[in-house]
């Protein structure tokens, strides 16, 4: 897609193509689930039978090369941060990040005295949606997914992420 991205500015001719591409991307978000700490349990609960995330088309993939969403669930320590950055760079464009839980949003309960905690994963990778909670309910995470889908719906190939 790189050959036609960022060449137009809000031309009418690309609106339907935009809509179709955005629909395809938001209907099949495949995360690598980066479950680090306690929020991983709520993420597993979201994938389980009661609050099924497969209804929205979300199936977890093991390899970052095949994923387009990274759910950072849990406390990000400085040691882990370099690995998160490496995995983020291995994901192909277009890619999105959800920071799940207070620890990934801003260091959470460790913001004041956590000498080992990175105060928010957005210090190493750009985050699209922050889902607060300690840990957030599965419905909160599903609402985070829906908010991300709304954000993708508003994208356009005239102005892409990488620009």
């Amino acid at each position, binding site marked *: 897609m790189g050959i036609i991205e960022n060449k137009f500015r809000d031309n009418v001719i690309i609106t339907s193509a935009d809509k179709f*591409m955005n629909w395809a991307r938001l209907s099949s978000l495949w995360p690598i689930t980066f479950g680090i700490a306690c929020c991983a349990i709520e993420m597993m609960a979201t994938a389980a039978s009661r609050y099924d995330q497969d209804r*929205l088309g979300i199936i977890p993939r093991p390899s970052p*090369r095949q994923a387009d969403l990274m759910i950072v669930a849990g406390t990000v320590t400085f040691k882990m941060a370099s690995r998160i950055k490496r995995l983020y760079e291995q994901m*192909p*464009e277009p890619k999105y990040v959800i920071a799940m839980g207070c620890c990934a949003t801003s260091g959470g309960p460790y913001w004041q005295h956590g000498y080992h905690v990175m105060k928010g994963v957005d210090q190493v990778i750009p985050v699209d949606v922050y889902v607060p909670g300690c840990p957030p309910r599965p419905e909160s995470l599903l609402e985070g997914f829906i908010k991300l889908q709304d954000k993708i719906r508003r994208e356009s190939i005239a102005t892409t992420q990488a620009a």
Partner: protein
Amino acid sequence: MDYFIQIVTDLLPGLNGLPQWLVIPSIMFLFGALIFTGIAIYSLIILWFERKIAAHMQDRLGPMEVGGWHGWLQTVADAVKLLLKEDIIPAVADRKLFKLAPYIVFLAAFAVFAALPFSDKIIGSELNIGIFYILSVSSVGVVGILMAGWGSNNKWALFGSMRSVAQFVSYEIPIGLSILVVVMSVGSLSMRDIVMAQDGGIFNWMIWQNAPFNFIAFLILFIAGTAETNRVPFDIPEAESELVAGFHVEYSGMRFSIFFLAEYANMLAVGIIASTLFLGGWQGITGASSAPGIGLIWMLLKGFLIVLVMIWFRWTLPRLRVDQLMYVCWKVLVPISFFNMVGAGIWIGLSS
């Protein structure tokens, strides 16, 4: 193929003006394109089925939101999204091998369809060594998997591809021995003759003949076929928690979707082979009917049924460890299929 050529030249009489050496190959190409389209559409449908069946077996709902009624557009969205992804080739990867590997794996799966009988008259190529051709061509996929693993320049990919090659090659033996049981009782390698030998209704199907040897041969063919296509419980090469997606770990976007397509095409091929050899092929419950379309529908239905049972297997069983996998092949399936073949040979010899 002759029937197909006849249909096309009847439909498009303008083709008679063109020279013969142009018409026949282009009609054959059309047939191949039709098969390819059929495989693509079938993959979309079977993927939706897999997700829905998996979900309902786990007491949940599966895709619901995409496209209205029970998410039937879900796989279309998946396919389009994979097409629109960035194409990453690792800098240290061997570019030629990396790029070529998915196509070779798909080629192996696709070439099998040339000799499969979809109906009395609809068959790509009426070979008199049909089943032998199928077995040998499907083994070409091994080369593709090796290329994927080596070309990715990634140790996990290499482990995955080595294990997959070992598994694939080992499970060829039980398949060959089971097919031999059918070939012995029919006396011919041609797919058409095998289906004709099952003429006359559901109780004449090969699976009930030479009991119990053919039944055991069918089970062994099914189990070994599941292993050939890297499905659970034999999916160590694509194991998620152990090998981070195995030999296709470095593939993204379109290349990855070709691997996926190849896996589902393989499943359908195994299903159709099993139903041709044991379940009566394109014949119905009460024997062959004259309309060619009915044969095609029966064939696809039976192949679909076998694929559904494979999906059922997947969501029931845990994964086998690689040494257990090899144990099952060499110490269980090979002896059983060997003695089965010997027994079937004696039975056939005694009863004729």
